């Protein structure tokens, strides 16, 4: 299934939840901020939200900045 993650197309197995995707990508859930189809999603709901074809996902994090 095709998603747009951080602006780039990428293929992932169907029926994944956000939590599942993070696990598959090996990302530490503690450190990321998720925007799903332009909606911010709180971490509580990551296990419940199932991703669909063409969903737009932004996986963000805080970095050093001035």
């Amino acid at each position: 299934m095709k998603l747009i993650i951080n602006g780039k197309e990428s293929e992932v197995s169907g029926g994944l939840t956000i939590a599942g995707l993070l696990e598959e990508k090996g990302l530490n859930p503690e450190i990321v901020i998720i925007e799903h189809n332009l909606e911010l999603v709180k971490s509580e709901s990551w296990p419940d939200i199932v991703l669909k074809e063409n969903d737009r996902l932004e996986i963000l994090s805080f970095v050093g900045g001035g």
Partner: protein
Amino acid sequence: MADMLTIGGVELESRLFLGTGKFSSNRMIPRVVESSGARVVTVALRRVDLDFPEENIVNFVPGECILMPNTSGARNAAEAVRIARLARASGCGNWVKIEVISDNRYLLPDNYETIKATEELAADGFVVLPYMSPDLMVAKKLEEVGAAAVMPLGAPIGSNRGLKTKELVRILIEEISLPIIVDAGIGRPSEAAEAMEMGAAAVLVNTAIATAADPVAMARAFGLAVAAGREAFLAGPGAVQDLARASSPLTGFLRDD
């Protein structure tokens, strides 16, 4: 009774705000924050590099600090607002530094879009500190639309060139009732002290500390200089004279004539 800076209802003892960009390692941040004495710390929001995920800077910022995400990367008000809302929703508080830039050479801010973003976010309950090009009329508009402070640049971001906009900043301090925080360009503690002596409410420093050979020591130097400049402003400097004024008495000399 201590001299505190109040912004967004928070009382701040240190008038040095700290940026966290460009440090050789995030591990240095806690010591830099501590030696600087800063309690307001800026961070940026970025897409995670899925191949090389970095550590989240937030984990390196001491808990007692106020996090102030900036909207760097935003080229207009809409992008700035989106970044600010994501940052707040992530639970790191409601302070935001507005930074709207489309000039990639000098990174000079777009004052118009900055006003728009400030208005929308202030109305939405943010504590908004806009980074701006020093301009009295713009500062007045930012005040009208609810900014918590105004942050004019001293020189281009990261240039370490110093307080090159002194003349315009001096006027903002005189004419605007909001705290004026000099952001960007300050390269030496003496320049930070001078801004404070002029009556600036605070200064925001990043590059000058991050690019020092010893950032922890330089952070301490800036903390001291900002305190010195503030103290001098409150102490009421003496007048400047064209001629000399003897500091030893001009009578009672031991002379044989």
